[in-house]
């Protein structure tokens, strides 16, 4: 039981990651793939922040009357990772817009077919 409570948080996070990964892996729509990547990454952020949490602690902004603070390092890492995530999303979406202009579709299958028909 203790193990369950101690790990419950992580397990949900793992499930979220897999939902994201699953969306990436099985979706044929490019926007959906980007959304899936977003989910996947966000879930990883959750994992990091869970790692940094200390029971009974508070936010790592030093103040009177507090001695236990959660770990600021994962927060910093995730701040960076969030930025990386949004950068990836932006770039992915920009690519999708261009792909749509070139192929008039954003479905993986149709793109593949279009390239097959017109030999390189």
């Amino acid at each position, binding site marked *: 039981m203790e193990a369950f409570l101690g790990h419950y948080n992580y397990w949900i996070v*793992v499930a979220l990651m897999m939902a994201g990964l699953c969306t990436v*892996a099985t*979706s044929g729509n490019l926007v959906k793939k980007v959304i899936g990547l977003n989910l996947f990454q966000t879930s990883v952020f959750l994992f990091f922040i869970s790692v940094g949490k200390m029971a009974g602690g508070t*936010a790592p902004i030093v103040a009177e009357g507090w001695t236990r603070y959660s770990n600021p390092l994962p927060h910093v890492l995730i701040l960076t990772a969030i930025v990386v995530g949004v950068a990836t999303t932006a770039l992915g979406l920009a690519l999708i817009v*261009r792909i*749509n202009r070139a192929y008039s579709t954003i*479905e993986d299958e149709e793109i593949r077919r279009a390239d097959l028909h017109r030999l390189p």
Partner: protein
Amino acid sequence: MEYLINTVLLALLAVTAGAIAYLRNLFAAVMLVGIYGLLTAAIFVILDAVDVAFTEAAVGAGISPILMLAALALTGREQTAPTSPSGAGIAIVLATGGALVWGTLDMPYFGDPLAPVHVHVAPRYLEGTLSEIGIPNAVTSVLASYRGYDTLGEVFVIFTAGIGAIVLLGNRRGD
């Protein structure tokens, strides 16, 4: 109490994630991405990561969905082909998830004050933020000074994305 809120929020997150994976309507998926961002940010607040919550709210619930909407506006489509769950893909995902769950079994418990992350490296940041840097927000001092180099990298990442978008789409009308 915090844990209770946390648990409920996580459950809501799981529902949202499932719905995003399942929905074929891209617009609805984008809306749910916004909700997902908000929920995550709320959990971050509960988990004491206020700076991250701040950012996640702005990015996960703000910038990302707006960008996705904008992209949808330009591509103007909904998912036509149904999501085809390929056996191999799902197997890989399940294997990955299984590996991760297996890996959690030796983890320190959630919130354990004696976990390695709380006894190594981090204590210095919490002490040093006042004595070495002189500001109370340890996140800012780690971000800007102790690990300022990561943040430099981070700024370059966003810069790269900007350059990439400009290269791909051009940022002038009619380009």
